Each structure stands twice: as C-alpha cells, then as structure tokens.
C-alpha cells in the first residue's frame, strides 16, 4: 500500500485553499507550512518567445511520502519512519532534533519547530485518513484538482470530494463534502506521458501531477 495525492495542474487555480486548510487542520505554526502552492511561470512557450506567448501553472509542494525516503534512512532514532500505509511519519517523542532528515529531503519540506524543537512536515492528515477520511488539502481543494488514494491501485481510483455537477438533486457544499468523486471519471482524459513527479534522487516520490498541453518545469518526470 502506498497512499499518495494526485494533483491535476490544469485544474489547480492557485487559490491556496490547500495551504490554509492544512494549517487550520494541523495547527501549523505561523510562518511554517506543510504544503505550499507555487506559481510556475510565466515561462516562454517556446525558445525566444515573449508575452503573450507564455504559459504558467500552479504546483503544490509538500512531503512526497516517498517510496524510499532518505529522511527515514538518515534518522538515528527511527523517529522518522514509514508506516504500512506508505506514509512517512515522525514520532515526536523520539525526535532529537538533529535535522539530518531536513538535509536529506530533496524538497526542503521539513523544518525545525522552534517551540517543540523537533522536526515537522506533512503527515498526509494521518488522523483523518486512519478513519477513512480524505486529507484536509484534498477535502478543501477549491478546484477539485486533488485526489487521494493508494498508488498501488492506480491513480484512476483516487478519490476527492464530489463536484456539484455530479450531484443530481442536493448540490450543497455539505452534501458534496459527504460524497466522493473518482479521478478516472471526473477529470478530463490524460496520457501516461502527462503524469509527472518531482525530481527523484533515489527516493522515489509517490505524489503525482497531471499536466496537459503545458511544459512541465518541475524536474523529475
């Protein structure tokens, strides 16, 4: 099992709902973030192109809950560990604050919590997914661009909250939040070559990004 999130970058509008919802759900300190939304671009559509021949998209970045997490490998106390569901978690009672995991992470998503003096990062809302709920960044995605699921079951099976257009009668916010939509049936079709990951330096990031008709700028594949 390998829980992960897939983000459709053609749908993401950069509303920062995921960033804000995460902070609220996980009490993330002021100035710290477990997920950020970067604007990538505007970049030229082709070499030498100038405005208006430019393109951009938004890229959500957080812990990628890697298949072979380097942060886990370097942790001297096994505070950073990989769970059976594939998520990478930190046992705060074991963390000695050596910050080698911060150095070993290719994406800079770990940081030292100055108050508790331990390292923190995205937990993929462990407290919610353990009860069958969706991570808060997926639940609150303003564009229905984010989907959560088990990578081993294929990304087509990933789920997000329902979209009003899919609802027959009650299209209320509450009703949509209570139902699920499936990536394979909600999103526009995509090719396998349009599914990307952040750069891989042997850690094998689990999160995927779908980007159509744009040039992927995030490194990796």
């Amino acid at each position: 099992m390998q829980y992960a999130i897939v983000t459709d970058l053609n749908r993401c509008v950069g509303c920062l709902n995921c960033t804000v919802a995460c902070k609220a759900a996980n009490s993330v300190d002021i100035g710290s973030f477990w997920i950020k939304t970067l604007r990538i671009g505007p970049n030229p559509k082709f070499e030498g192109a100038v405005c208006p021949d430019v393109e951009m998209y938004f890229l959500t970045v957080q812990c990628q809950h890697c298949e072979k997490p380097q942060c886990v490998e370097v942790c001297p106390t096994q505070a950073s560990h990989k769970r059976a569901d594939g998520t990478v978690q930190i046992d705060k009672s074991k963390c000695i604050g050596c910050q080698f995991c911060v150095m070993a992470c290719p994406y800079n998503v770990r940081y030292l919590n100055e108050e508790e003096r331990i390292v923190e990062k995205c937990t993929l809302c462990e407290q919610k997914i353990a009860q069958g709920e969706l991570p808060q960044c997926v639940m609150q995605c303003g564009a229905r661009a984010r989907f959560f699921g088990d990578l081993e079951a294929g990304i087509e099976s990933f789920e997000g909250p329902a979209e009003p257009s899919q609802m027959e009668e009650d299209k209320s916010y509450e009703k949509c939040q209570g139902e699920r939509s499936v990536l394979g049936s909600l999103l526009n079709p995509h090719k396998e070559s349009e599914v990307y990951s952040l750069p891989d330096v042997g850690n094998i990031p689990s999160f995927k990004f779908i980007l159509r008709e744009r040039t992927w700028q995030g490194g990796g594949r």
Partner: protein
Amino acid sequence: MELQWPLMFFTLFICLGTGTFGVAGLLAGLNKAKEIQIPAVVVSLIAIVLGGLASFLHLEHWDRAFNGFGHLTSGITQELIGIVVFAVVAIIYLVLARRGAVPAWAGWLALIVSVVLVIIMSASYGMSARPVWDTPLLWLYYLSNAALSGALVVLAISALAKPDAESAKGSQGSSAIFTLSAKLALGAAVLTLIALLAYAVFIPSLSPSFTSVGNYFDPTQPTKVMDDPQGMLSGFLTGDQALLFWVGALVLGALVPGAAAFFVTRQQGTTAASTAGVAALCALAGALCFRVVLYALGFSVFVFY
C-alpha cells in the same frame, strides 16, 4: 542551507583528532617518534571530546539522544560507533605509550581507525539530495584536512620534544621525526590544495543536477528574490563565496600551512614549534572557511519550497 556551526566544529575537531592520532600512529608504525606519542594522543583525545561536545550542541533534544539511538543506516549512528571505537583504541594506545614504546601494530591500528572515522564522517554527509556534499571529493578533502592539521600538531610537538635516549642512539632522534613530520605536513597541504582545486572544477559542473522551473513565485514569501542555484554554483569562484574559497580555504587553509611546513625545517625549538602551531591554526581556519562554503552551496536539488 543555513550554517550549522556545531556540525562544522564537529567535523573540524574530528579531523584534528583523527589526523593527530593517525600521524602519531603512522610514526609509531614506522618505529619512530616515541617521544611525541603521549602528547599527540592527549591532543587527539581532547579534540575528539570537543568534537563530541560540538555535536551535542547541535542536537535540539540531546536528552533523548540515547532513547532509541542506533538506527544503523543513519550516518549519526555510524559516527557515534566510530567515535567510541576510536576512543577505546586511543586509550589503549595511551596506556601502551605510557608503558614504553608503542608497538608497530598499535601504530598501524591507530592509523586505520583514524582514516575509517574520517570516511564514516564524510559519508554521513553523502546525501543524494545535496549534490555538493554527495561526492568522494568530500572524503578526500576531509582526509587531507585531518592529515594536514594532524601533521602540523605532531610537527609542533616534535619541535619541542627532547630526544628520547634510546632513539637518539640511532638515527631516529627528534630532529629526524621533526623533518619527517614537516614532509608529511607538506604532502598533506598539497593534497588539500588538490582537493580544493578539484572542488573548484566540480561545483560549477553540478548545475544540471538542480531543478530549474524558470520564473516562479511563492505566495508565502511574496517579496523574496527567486533562488538561482545554477547561477550561484557556476559563479561561486567569483561571487559571494569567492573570498572564503580563494583566501580562506585555499591560501589560509593550504598554501600558508604548506609554506610553513617547507620553511620550518630551517628553524629549531620554540620558534619552529610556534611556526607549526600558527600553521595548524591557519589550516583549521581555512578548513572552517571551506565548511562555510560547503553549507552555503549545499542546496537541495529542489530549492523552491
């Protein structure tokens, strides 16, 4: 990456301690330098203890350090095991030195333990996320650091040492040890210079290892200038890090100690010891300068978070 001073001093003191013990061990392995053994091992152990204290200062929760410590794939665990083994060997070595001559096997063991500890320490920074650290050049640099600072410490001790009555009968008097230590220091300075020049070529070549996304904007840091790792790497020889690299690491850390090791053989006694001591301090200061450069350029492959 922000500077981690405790870790920089940790690696510096480990290099000093292993270098001093390793050079003393080499001389003992060659059946030389009986009179410098005890002060050299004492200096080495003091340096290792200081290194250990520096590493503890880095830990935010050192009180939990032994609560579950021992994950073997962790460089920190490997370093701890290496330091414990080193300390045990050094204490046995000290006992042997106090009893009389250090046997040759103990000398070679001291050299091996010292080299292994430096390699373990270097390997703990070999993280694929940070290409500037993830190279055997770091091993070479730290080994040359250890050899240079250690040889200069032994050189200073041998300049002050009174010839041992037994060894003075033969050709292995303290002047011979002094000359040999100077040669070792000169060789280590050349090795440091080679490691630094290799790094000067290597670092700019790393640009393709870092992700480029063109223009970007982080709304959580709206006024922050865009990071440009490629630009910093390709321009590090002439940019912000140039002074630290050329004057600090290269001139102060390699050329000055090398020149001192070359000319010190024309001096004697306290003058020679002072020259060697100052050269050792220069070597350590230069080594610290390059550690600052390594941290400043120790970006991860994806820097935009």
